[in-house]
């Protein structure tokens, strides 16, 4: 399944790592793509900032090392966020 989430994540990976988007597949891991750790944390940051979500950190229930894992994690977190009720009281500034 190719959708917005997948395309957005491919785009973020390509932009942060400087890789040709054609080289990125759902079956790649960040390691296969030879993405250094500093680029990897920037990819995670850009994803979090784009979707306003918090990606899990070394949580055994989530795979954030592979492209497929990143896409699935984002889909799940975005769905959870959309399902969550709005805060009872608006935050005060």
């Amino acid at each position, binding site marked *: 399944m190719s959708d917005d989430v997948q395309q957005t994540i491919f785009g973020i990976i390509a932009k942060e790592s400087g890789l040709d988007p054609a080289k990125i597949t759902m079956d790649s891991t960040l390691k296969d793509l030879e993405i*250094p*750790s500093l680029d990897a*944390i920037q990819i995670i940051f850009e994803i979090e900032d784009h979707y306003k979500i918090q990606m899990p*950190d070394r949580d055994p229930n989530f795979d954030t090392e592979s492209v497929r894992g990143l896409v699935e994690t984002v889909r799940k977190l975005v769905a959870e966020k959309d399902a969550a009720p709005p805060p009872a009281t608006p935050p005060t500034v």
Partner: protein
Amino acid sequence: MNRRVVITGMGAICALGHDARQVWAGMRDGRSAIGPLIGFDGQDMRVRVAAQVRDYDPIEYFDEKKLLLLDRVSQFALIAAREAVAQSGLDFDSGDLRQRTACVIGTGAGGEQTNDEASRRLYKEDNPRLHPLSIVRRMMNAPASQVSIEFGVTGPTFAVSSACASANHAFAQAFALVRSGAVDAALAGGTEACITLGVLRAWEAMRVLADDTCRPFCKQRRGLVLGEGAGMFVLEDFDHARARGAEILAEFAGAGMSADAVDIVMPSDLGAARAIRSALDDAQLNTSEIDYINAHGTGTPANDPTETRAIRKVFDEHADSLAVSSTKSVHGHALGAAGALELIAVLGALREGVLPPTANFVDPDPQCDLDYVPNVARERDVRAVLSNAFAFGGLNAVVALRRAA
């Protein structure tokens, strides 16, 4: 002229306690002072734990007028420096000692509490007026300047900043000044007060923080835990110390420094090994004379195996008879103060013949195959030691100490 340099005073404050005696007792007992993060209610922090200085009321140490000038980072430096100077018994009114005393203090982050307050006013409260003392509180040299003012010492005084190696780089500079004869004494150490919202958020984004505790060198390690505090020491010319009958805590034997020049975050075993080797050479110590290394041992996936390889490279077969431990397991990673707190650990080991353990140790990691003194302190005759510090940016500083003769 190469003079012998000794340590005649020490002081410390960190999560383990508010003086050097308490700090050493916590290290020796392997009593972790890492606990739930406090002071950030309502912020939904990803950071769960830290080694914060607790039960601390600055008004017990400083009057209100003085406090206006002091970021928390300078408060810690002053508290530790007062203890170190008192222990040394140095009398700055004697002869020309004021001019012949240096003050070199490392800090990685500087006045972050002041920065945080300024950011809150500017961006949250939309208030363009910052406190008029913001600059003098947060400048990187504020701790060094405040300590020089406190004691009226007028020799070479400056800050050293190299992230997590700042304190060890500061010791190296102070040591060189005393050894060369440029000064007779130096107040040297490191200080950090980095547990602020801005710094915590930045560390969260790097994804190197543990969410449980700090477990250096073991298989279950999940990253570093931030700490804070200061350690300050009096380095003194041996003849000067002996002439006034001072108690000598240890000999400061040498220092070695290097840059990896490879990567801004990933450590290099080659760079670390070069700094270790150069500290031994500088101290004229053989590898076989070193009984204990206080490791950088952050508990991150990258540091611990790299540091292990570096030690093996330099020590060869003697690596298996060395004891290596990381006291960050009990006082966290105090960044620019790390090497200063860890100097308390090596002084304790040299003076009492007790190795402080690596606390929170569960199972060994095949990539980390040295003797890390897991969980329980051990008695050992300790003749000479190293203390490692390896910073982000690939900056390494290692210091070598010998037991007082």
